[in-house]
């Protein structure tokens, strides 16, 4: 028996949308919207293409095995490892540098351990900011923070300042992005008693290629991802091939997130920006929303690098506060304590001052 109907979904309300062969238009029985059959067929063809692209995107893999290399026996012999007995952090230094306390939890008991199980970084960004610059930058960071307790800056001393090389995985890739958007164009006109809005709805396909270089994802579980994201960007044009001599006088965090585990974060960041670029190319509409997207990696590679971070710790009312400064750019990130009295006092004053002004303005309209 010949097939007499094909079932689509209404693009407007998602209800079943039957139509009879030979007819040029289909009308949704639920929302009443009318569609050209050729448009529906094109819509479904695009959806199938998008599904195939998404499958291809999932299959594309990063070559993580090429990241990092093995230490020579001589290099490994010159390194020392310490394990924090409190939080389990593993810190690496050269043989002349002594880690005196854990930079993550402040525990002074660090147990020497055998250096092993860590790849040799491909690159490093050497420290450009000094200890004095880190302290000055932190003091500058306090300025203009109206809710900062007075006693925090008054009686506060930075308890520890440590230069730390943090492990990062750097992802390079040429990506091919495809995205489908639903875009809306409104035409508003008025009759004597009605405001009529006609909305034309379009399906917009955008595709393109672009290249990312050195998208970072930190390789340390101890380092808060939000802190590491906030301390960016690093200028990776200043990367130099790694040499163990850069560790002299500095500490290094031993990575505990391998390259494969860092891939989802890098993928997410690149996909997000790729879709943003494609969305920016949808112009001439009043509104738009994404329907689907796929981002396929090509020509990808991963490198292992150490980046410089100053870690400054202090205590206030028996709570530790950690600040970090980008050792290359000097950017400081951190969260300051809040004075609860000030938190309510200042907004209350602003509210009380605004009442008579707003009352006077409101009287003009009521």
């Amino acid at each position: 028996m010949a097939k007499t109907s094909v079932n689509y979904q209404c693009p407007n309300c998602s209800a079943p949308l039957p139509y009879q062969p030979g007819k040029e238009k289909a009308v949704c029985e639920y929302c009443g919207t009318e569609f050209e059959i050729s448009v529906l067929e094109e819509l479904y063809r695009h959806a199938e293409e998008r599904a195939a692209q998404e499958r291809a995107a999932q299959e594309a893999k990063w070559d993580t095995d090429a990241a990092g290399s093995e230490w020579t026996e001589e290099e490994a012999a010159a390194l020392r490892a310490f394990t924090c007995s409190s939080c389990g952090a593993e810190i690496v230094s050269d043989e002349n540098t002594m880690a005196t306390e854990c930079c993550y939890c402040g525990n002074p008991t660090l147990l020497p351990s055998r250096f092993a199980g860590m790849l040799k970084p491909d690159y490093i960004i050497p420290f450009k900011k000094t200890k004095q610059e880190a302290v000055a930058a932190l003091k500058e960071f306090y300025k203009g923070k109206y809710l900062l307790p007075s006693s925090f800056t008054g009686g506060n001393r930075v308890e520890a300042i440590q230069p730390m090389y943090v492990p990062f995985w750097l992802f390079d890739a040429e990506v091919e992005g495809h995205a489908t958007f639903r875009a809306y164009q409104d035409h508003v006109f008025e009759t004597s008693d009605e405001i009529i809005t006609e909305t034309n709805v379009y399906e917009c396909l955008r595709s393109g290629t672009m290249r990312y270089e050195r998208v970072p994802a930190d390789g340390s579980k101890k380092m808060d991802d939000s802190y590491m994201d906030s301390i960016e960007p690093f200028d990776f044009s200043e990367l130099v091939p790694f040499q163990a001599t850069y560790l002299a006088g500095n500490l290094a965090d031993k990575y505990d997130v391998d390259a494969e585990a860092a891939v989802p974060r890098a993928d997410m960041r690149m996909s997000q920006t790729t879709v943003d670029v494609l969305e920016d190319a949808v112009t001439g509409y009043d509104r738009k929303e994404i329907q689907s997207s796929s981002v396929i990696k090509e020509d990808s590679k991963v490198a292992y690098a150490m980046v410089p971070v100053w870690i400054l710790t202090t205590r206030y009312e028996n709570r530790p506060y950690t600040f970090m400064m980008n050792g290359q750019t000097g950017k400081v990130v951190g969260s300051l304590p809040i004075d609860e009295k000030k938190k309510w006092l200042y907004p209350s004053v602003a509210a009380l001052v605004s009442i008579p002004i707003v009352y006077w303005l409101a009287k003009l309209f009521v």
Partner: protein
Amino acid sequence: MPLDYKRILSALAVLLCLLLPAAALAAKVNAEPGIEPGQVVVDEAGLLDRSERAELARHIEGLQEKHGIGIAVVTKKSLHGKDIVKYTDNLMNQRFSPGQNGNTVLLIAIDQRDFQIVTDAKMHAIITNDGGAPYLRDAFLDDLSDGRYQAAFLAYADTVDELVSYYEKEGKPFDPADQFSWIALGIAVILALVVMYGVQSYLVSMMSNVQPGYGAGAYLLDDSIRLEAPTDTFLYMTVTRAPKPKESDRDGGSDIGGGHGGIGGKF
């Protein structure tokens, strides 16, 4: 020549006989039928019963005496197409202006459900177009619309009393903008709470610059972007219709000439 008193008296008598009917006719032309001198409630449309009329009249007479003003309520079955503003103003000028300190008349034409208030120049200075007039109208219009005629007329009289008392006490006409507004205060308090929340959120947000990363824009090579030709396909069109908001017909009062003022409308 000696005066002929008889002829003079006869001529005066003839003249008197000729003038008296003319004067009576003139009075009949100017006066409204059925309105007694000093009457303050004229209910030709029959909206009130006898006792309601008497009570309303007593109340108005008391207010007239209290302030030295004239207040009148007139209801008509129909104005037969006459202009209600001119008609009411003429009515006040001719029949209802006993007050030394100002006069006002409320007229109802029940067939068209029209109402009109007019004020003479003195009362217009007390009940101004943008101040007292809308306040006076709003005081009785709901009762009038709902058919509670006596309540509406009493509210009209009492509100005139209130506005005149205010003027006597303050030395200036009533202006709603001078009055305390609970609505404005409520709006001010709500917006102040919004201000408080906004200021607090801003101050708290300043205390930390730690936030998760979003995207990789800093690592995108701008000159590497190659976009393919866009494909835009029209899918369908939707139409929404919304009724236009109607402008309020409750605007202020207006000047009606000769220094008089008034406010009117439908009920």
